[in-house]
């Protein structure tokens, strides 16, 4: 395989590839920060580059896959665009707000505003889901999305409960509550993959 075809393969990879790549890259940045290999500003800068840089091709790959598999719809394309914009905003605001809080240690009011700012894209994500469910005229695609949402919800509840008990028993460290959003997204993605493999 020459370099050109290898590059073509990467850029035509599916949404799962880009999702996994983003997860691994973000994990590597967090690990480097915890190990002290990079300082806060570098980790924020890296996250600001990695997040949007991988979300855009992931959303494009999702749209392409939907068209290829014959499950694309105008509502689905609008959903992918809205979800992509919200996710990109979240990956930008999350490291920025964490850095601002760590760096400036603002007062209560500003801290609450920072927390609200980073949660706004999460509201937008659920808004995108609600609008999709209202706009999608294809009942089977709507059914699949609702099933994927239940996969995401199940992942959050099961992993959250398991982690909570392990934390109570002092076997694992504390995980911030905002980790539910990526867990939910990963759960939804696994649900989509499972249903895509023909196993409801």
């Amino acid at each position, binding site marked *: 395989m020459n370099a050109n075809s290898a590059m073509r393969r990467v850029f035509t990879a599916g949404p799962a590839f880009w999702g996994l790549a983003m997860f691994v890259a973000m994990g590597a940045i967090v690990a480097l920060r915890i190990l002290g290999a990079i300082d806060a500003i570098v980790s924020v800068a890296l996250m600001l580059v990695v997040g949007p840089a991988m979300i855009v091709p992931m959303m494009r790959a999702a749209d392409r896959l939907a068209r290829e*598999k*014959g*499950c*694309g*719809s105008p509502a689905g394309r609008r959903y992918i665009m809205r979800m992509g914009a919200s996710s990109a905003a979240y990956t930008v605001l999350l490291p920025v707000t964490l850095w601002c809080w760590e760096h400036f240690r603002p007062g209560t009011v500003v801290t609450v505003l920072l927390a609200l700012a980073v949660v706004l894209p999460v509201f937008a994500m659920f808004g995108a889901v609600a609008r999709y469910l209202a706009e999608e*005229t*294809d*009942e*089977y*695609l709507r*059914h699949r999305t609702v099933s994927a949402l239940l996969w995401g919800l199940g992942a959050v509840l099961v992993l959250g409960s398991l982690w909570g008990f392990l934390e109570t028993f002092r076997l694992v460290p504390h995980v911030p509550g905002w980790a539910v959003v990526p867990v939910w997204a990963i759960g939804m993605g696994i649900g989509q993959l499972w249903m895509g493999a*023909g196993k*409801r």
Partner: protein
Amino acid sequence: MKNRLKVLRAERGWSQQDLADRLEVSRQSVNAIETGKYDPSLPLAFRIAEVFAMRIEEIFLKG
């Protein structure tokens, strides 16, 4: 629920996409219904019956 969608479609020489276009749904929806992975709602079942000019019970079978 079993159905005769695939046979009826083949008799008319329609692809899954042709039927999907007539029903104004995705090709994947037609595939899911044909393979029994998804049972359509009553309004969609009526639309399918209308497209084939048949009664619902001639297309969808118990069991």
